[in-house]
């Protein structure tokens, strides 16, 4: 087993990995940027090394400095977490060259799965379903017309060089193809400097369902079932769950998707933990999208239902141990949900909300797990991802998991910054969510119904507030903007 492990990450995932290391009795080394000097992962690790200033490009993305920190502290392995350098094949290769074990798949597998086109080709060759369409840019409208004919309308035109919806057009019938092609192409040209456009079958009301795989370095590979992650905002997952309500209706899907995932992973001799993302239509037809060659944010959901500790296994597998769990040993019990608590305002276009946390109270009790990077008194830095914590719950079935999550969300308190805590009350009480009839457009369509508060609730709020500031000062009386203007930027709010 490793003598010492460095965690090349920050926030909740660094804390998660430190906990696993502590359970395995392996000393941990945190790295931190100047903005993270007192962050939770620094407090919890056995050792900590500063690797640069706040911007990630000068700290968490500097592979060389991280390897230096590993060598300085005598760490013999690096856990990359997710994001940052976790899917950087060059970094994984540099670790190998430096004799430091990268806790993840081989750098070659990362590279092969790193490009969406390459991953798509590998998947197709392995016999897994992919979204029908062209893999490269269309030479002409006529080529597009021919492909659309084969795969059937509606189709989607997409910019080959870009993302984020720019240069994207939905086409419902052949008559609209030509004008849509011109529009998409010129928009792509303006946005990305290349007018190349490709075509794909459009999946209506798609669901995002992914398969967790786990393999050792001796060729044994299993899948741990699915997670449904259809509740997203701006392609960022917000709520995840297992079982997928779709798979609860069509149990054979878990096996089918699992087998498809294994085929693809085997094609790159995948080892360690990985996730294959699929787009699923409402009938259960699924298409491979891409592979995340690292630990997934939402892994706790799978840990709850399978009882397997993914981070323990990642470390043990990287140390050369055999994965002793056979496919037939994997069972799925009950139902798990995860909510991602972000420092952002869901009622204001999900605007990020860094700043000082005045009060921070986590839920607890039966069936509740919190993986957090936040704590009372912490100033959430503005430089990084707004994920504060992941709240996950388990119960014997989905309806009870939803009630438990509601109860846990109702216990959560974060004062001082805005969070999306109130959003979950909306989701969890939503009839469509409760029915399990999900798609990735759910959040966009969600109508916000504020909870009613009665007179006694308001009186309690006001009485406590009055006690809190018995003599309202001029400042507390809603000072005219001019005076605020004159006061210097309240930089201390922002560290």
């Amino acid at each position, binding site marked *: 087993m490793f003598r010492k492990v460095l965690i090349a990450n920050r926030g909740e995932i660094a804390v998660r990995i430190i906990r696993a290391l502590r359970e395995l009795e392996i000393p941990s080394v945190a790295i931190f940027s100047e903005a993270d000097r007192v962050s939770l992962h620094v407090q919890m690790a056995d050792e900590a090394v500063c690797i640069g200033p706040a911007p990630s490009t000068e700290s968490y993305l500097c592979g060389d400095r991280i390897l230096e920190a590993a060598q300085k502290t005598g760490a013999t392995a690096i856990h990359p977490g997710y994001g940052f350098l976790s899917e950087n094949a060059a970094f994984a290769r540099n670790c190998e060259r430096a004799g430091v074990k990268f806790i993840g798949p081989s750098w070659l597998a990362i590279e092969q799965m790193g490009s969406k086109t390459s991953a798509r080709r590998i998947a197709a060759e392995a016999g897994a379903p992919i979204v029908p369409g062209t893999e490269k840019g269309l030479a002409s409208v006529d080529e597009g017309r021919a492909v659309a004919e084969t795969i059937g309308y509606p189709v989607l035109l997409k910019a080959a060089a870009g993302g984020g919806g720019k240069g994207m057009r939905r086409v419902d019938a052949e008559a609209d193809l030509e004008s849509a092609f011109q529009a998409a192409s010129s928009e792509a040209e303006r946005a990305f400097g290349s007018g190349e456009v490709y075509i794909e079958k459009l999946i209506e009301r798609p669901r995002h369902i992914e398969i967790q795989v786990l393999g050792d370095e001796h060729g044994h590979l299993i899948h741990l079932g699915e997670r449904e992650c259809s509740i997203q905002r701006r392609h960022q997952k917000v709520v995840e769950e297992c079982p997928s309500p779709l798979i609860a209706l069509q149990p054979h899907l878990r096996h089918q998707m699992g087998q498809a995932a294994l085929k693809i992973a085997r094609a790159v001799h995948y080892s360690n933990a990985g996730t294959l993302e699929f787009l699923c239509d409402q009938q259960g037809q699924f298409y491979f999208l891409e592979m995340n060659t690292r630990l997934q944010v939402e892994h706790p959901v799978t840990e709850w239902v399978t009882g397997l500790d993914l981070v323990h296994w990642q470390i043990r597998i990287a140390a050369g141990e055999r994965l002793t769990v056979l496919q037939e040993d994997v069972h799925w019990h009950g139902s798990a949900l995860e909510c991602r608590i972000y420092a952002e305002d869901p009622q204001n276009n999900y605007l990020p909300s860094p700043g000082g946390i005045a009060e921070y109270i986590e839920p607890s009790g039966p069936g509740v797990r919190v993986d957090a990077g936040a704590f009372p008194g912490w100033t959430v830095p503005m430089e990084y991802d707004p994920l504060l914590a992941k709240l996950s719950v388990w119960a014997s079935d989905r309806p009870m998991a939803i009630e438990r999550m509601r109860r846990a969300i109702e216990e959560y308190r974060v004062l001082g910054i805005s969070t999306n805590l109130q959003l979950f009350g909306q989701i969890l009480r939503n009839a469509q969510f409760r029915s399990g009839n999900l798609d990735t457009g759910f959040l966009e369509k969600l109508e916000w119904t504020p909870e009613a508060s009665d007179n006694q609730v308001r009186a309690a709020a006001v009485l406590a507030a009055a006690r809190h500031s018995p003599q309202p000062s001029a400042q507390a009386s809603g000072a005219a903007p001019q005076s605020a203007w004159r006061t210097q930027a*309240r930089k201390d709010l922002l560290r």
Partner: protein
Amino acid sequence: MKLRVQFDEDSYVLEFRSSGSNSPCAYTLTGAEAHSGEASVIQVRPDLYSVLAGTRSFAVYVAPRGSQLEVWVEHQRYLLALSDARDFAASGRGASAKGRSQISTQMPGKVIRILVETGAQVKAGQGLIIVEAMKMQNELKAPRDGTVSKIATVEGATVAANQPLVIIE
């Protein structure tokens, strides 16, 4: 004691009498909805109060949030502004001068680009400043046509929520 309370969108006047810090106090809330009753309010720790109103029990958290108070009752969050009831007339409403618009950022962050110069003519909807936080960029736009009379920040500066950055006249 008599206080004016701005409670999210609604205004109230709260009147209360307490015979001691830990004994129940009688209160009257007038405004959007009128209500009176008696409650025991105990401070549990600096930012936490336990309120018993009749048999109903509330744990109330209070923390300052800019010029307001952030108050959580149960799992619901409110923004309150308290002021002496006599200040009501004085504090008024539309304190910002007519014909003058202040543009401020709701999101604390770093100014990554300033798109206009002092003296420039701008149209409503035109981008003025881009602020970035947590990898998300937010473009502040002119609320109306006018002239940029002041830019109160520089590129690279760190700005707080609600900090005014540009004035258009």
